[in-house]
């Protein structure tokens, strides 16, 4: 623990979940000590190290313990066992406008809020103008906060917190508030923080903001750290857990990809003249494809009779949206006469996609008759993981440089 800015050591947090809260003496007496509650470990032996100047994301689905962990870091919840070591001043943004008093003016609330975050009156005096300016609320600053919209309150809260200038900033999914303009301002401010060498811990389930902001990320599931590493890698693991718990895509992605390697063949529809036996998706990565990497798809078919007018088609979908579709005829490939078992290879020189899971549909169709010999709809998946910081759908290869104009 010598040089870390923030270190969590063997932290566990235990909750008692009461079936119904009994907080009056009468109820306590009636229920006795056996008031019905469930033991619940919100965090179990969590270890996290954050270097000074790092921006770290805590990713996890609802109930994974990520917010509890942040509250323990902030000193709001006491750990059951273990400890948290923090170097320097800490400001926590758990909910914007926490501690605002609705009957007080914005001005009074700035003072109160900043002093809750540990500032002295003199420090607040010197930062007051900056805070007001950042919040863009100068004309309302003497109005009572109860007349503020939630967005305005959030702006004021964020303005106070970032201008407190802490060594460690803890943020809990607050960037979702405010208009786009303000959000950009928040991100700019966070970037400034990063440049100033401050440490930031950022809790979210929005993978995109982790990618944009964080240097590394920890993935929490059921109170445990299940993975940590570069944002892209962490996001991939996070997605797996999300899918595993959502129940819609019950098999974990790793298994999905394995399943693809050995196809059961029963998903193939069509006239039955040709069956698609197996689809194999190959790439450099194990289990996933990195953005921009090549991909090779091998389709094994078996023609039950000689067919001379077949063309192969491949389509890529994200959800129900068609991203790409191509046919062998369109590419001028001479399929010839199919008879018996064979293989067609689709070689994608590059996969220009960002994060996501994409499904593929294959078909074998008669060029003249139009009859569908074989059709395999969205059985095969591949997953793309973006190791970089770009956000969106398409991985445009872009290079940036600054050209200064000589005067």
């Amino acid at each position, binding site marked *: *623990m*010598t*040089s870390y800015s923030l270190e969590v050591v063997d932290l566990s947090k235990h*909750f*008692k979940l009461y079936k119904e809260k009994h*907080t*009056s*003496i*009468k109820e*306590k007496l009636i229920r006795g000590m056996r008031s019905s509650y469930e033991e619940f470990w919100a965090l179990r032996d969590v270890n996290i190290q954050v270097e*000074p100047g790092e921006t770290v994301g805590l990713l996890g689905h609802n109930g994974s313990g990520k917010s509890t962990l942040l*509250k*323990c*870091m*902030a*000193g*709001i*919840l*006491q*750990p*059951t*066992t*273990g*400890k*948290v*070591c*923090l*170097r*320097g*001043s*800490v400001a*926590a943004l*758990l*909910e914007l406008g*926490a*501690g605002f*008093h609705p*009957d*007080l003016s914005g001005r*009074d609330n700035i*003072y*109160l809020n900043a*002093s*809750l*975050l*540990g500032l*002295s*009156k003199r420090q607040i005096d010197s930062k007051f103008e900056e805070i007001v300016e950042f919040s863009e609320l100068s004309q309302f600053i003497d109005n009572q906060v109860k007349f503020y919209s939630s967005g305005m309150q959030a702006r004021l809260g964020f303005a106070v917190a970032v201008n407190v200038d802490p*060594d460690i900033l803890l943020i809990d999914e607050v960037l979702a508030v405010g208009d786009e303009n303000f959000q950009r301002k928040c991100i700019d401010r966070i970037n400034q923080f990063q440049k100033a060498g401050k440490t930031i811990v950022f809790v979210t389930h929005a993978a995109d903001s982790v990618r944009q902001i964080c240097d590394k990320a920890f993935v929490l599931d059921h109170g445990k750290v299940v993975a940590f590493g570069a944002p892209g890698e962490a996001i991939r693991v996070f997605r797996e857990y999300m899918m595993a718990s959502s129940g819609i895509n019950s098999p974990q992605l790793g298994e999905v990809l394995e399943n693809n390697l050995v196809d059961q063949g029963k998903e193939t529809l069509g006239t039955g003249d040709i069956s698609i036996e197996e689809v194999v998706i190959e790439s450099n990565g194990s289990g996933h494809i990195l953005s921009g990497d090549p991909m090779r798809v091998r389709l094994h078919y078996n023609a039950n009779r000689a067919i001379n007018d077949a063309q192969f088609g491949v389509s890529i979908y994200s959800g129900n949206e068609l991203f790409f579709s191509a046919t062998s005829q369109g590419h001028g490939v001479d399929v010839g006469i199919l008879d018996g078992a064979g293989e067609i290879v689709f070689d994608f020189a590059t996969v220009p996609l960002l994060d996501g899971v994409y499904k593929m549909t294959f078909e074998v169709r008669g060029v003249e008759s139009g009859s569908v010999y074989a059709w395999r709809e969205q059985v095969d998946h591949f997953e793309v993981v973006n190791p970089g910081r770009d956000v969106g759908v398409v991985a445009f290869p872009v290079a940036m440089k600054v050209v200064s104009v000589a005067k």
Partner: protein
Amino acid sequence: MSAVDDGIKPLGKPVRILTPEVSVISRLQRMWAERELLVFMVSRDLSVKYKGSALGFAWSFLNPALTLAIYDFVFSVALHNPVPDFAIYLMCGLVIWNFFFNSVLTACASVVNNSGLIKKVSFSREILVLSSMGTAAVFFFFQAIILTVVLALFHLVPQTPYVYLVPLALVVLIIFTSTLSIFFSAVNVYFRDTYHILEVLLMAWFWATPTVYTWQVASSGLTHHHLTWIYLADPIAPIILLMQRAFYGNPLAGVARTAGMKVPPPAPHTHYLANFDLSWYLKDFGIVILVSSILFVLSLKLFGKLEGNFAEEL
């Protein structure tokens, strides 16, 4: 905050270590470090209290003055209370009682009422308790001003040497009040009935102090039932007795109270008051300070133990 590794210091930033147990010493240190927050919290409570009222802050004078007028009317005029200058007699006890009552009762609810802060911001939770006491202290101050003004109007002077013990009595009052405040505020989070029980308890307690009636009235009955020691074991009662001894019923020598007439100054009304000497007060205060200090540390310990689950219980 037990071990601070040696390797940390060179980087120059203070290191905070959050552990399941926090010692009383470090709790007190943190409270001291956050004293400015206490000032903000008190001023928040004060400005919120009179927000939107036309007279605003004037109420903090008006309220005790009017209360006093009502009591004076009821007891002196309606009930023919024989105690002369009853308003002053009452005021001497009431300033003490009001501070105690307001502190303990608002402190008891303070943690529960500020659940929003507790759940979202990290700070010494004791500050909430102390700010309840701070607000009560501000009102104590206003009432003390009223008392001073009234004393001057009635040409009364403090009685030496008892008046010199008043600062000590206030120290006793603060230690005892903060002990109870901290204790009840923490317990109230877990048993919400505490507040309601306390309300009734304090009302009974009020009538167990010689605020409205005189010691002279109480003592005969108490002696008869051998209850005097219990009555005086209450830390508040001796403080009120001392206040009355120090400020009540000592007219300024040589000043005639009836305008234009040369009359000898009236004799002090001390026969209504308890006749304890200085050493009795000193001994009593000494014991209360000692016992309260021990209880204060214990209640801080309890507060610290319960505090860990505040954010979850609220």
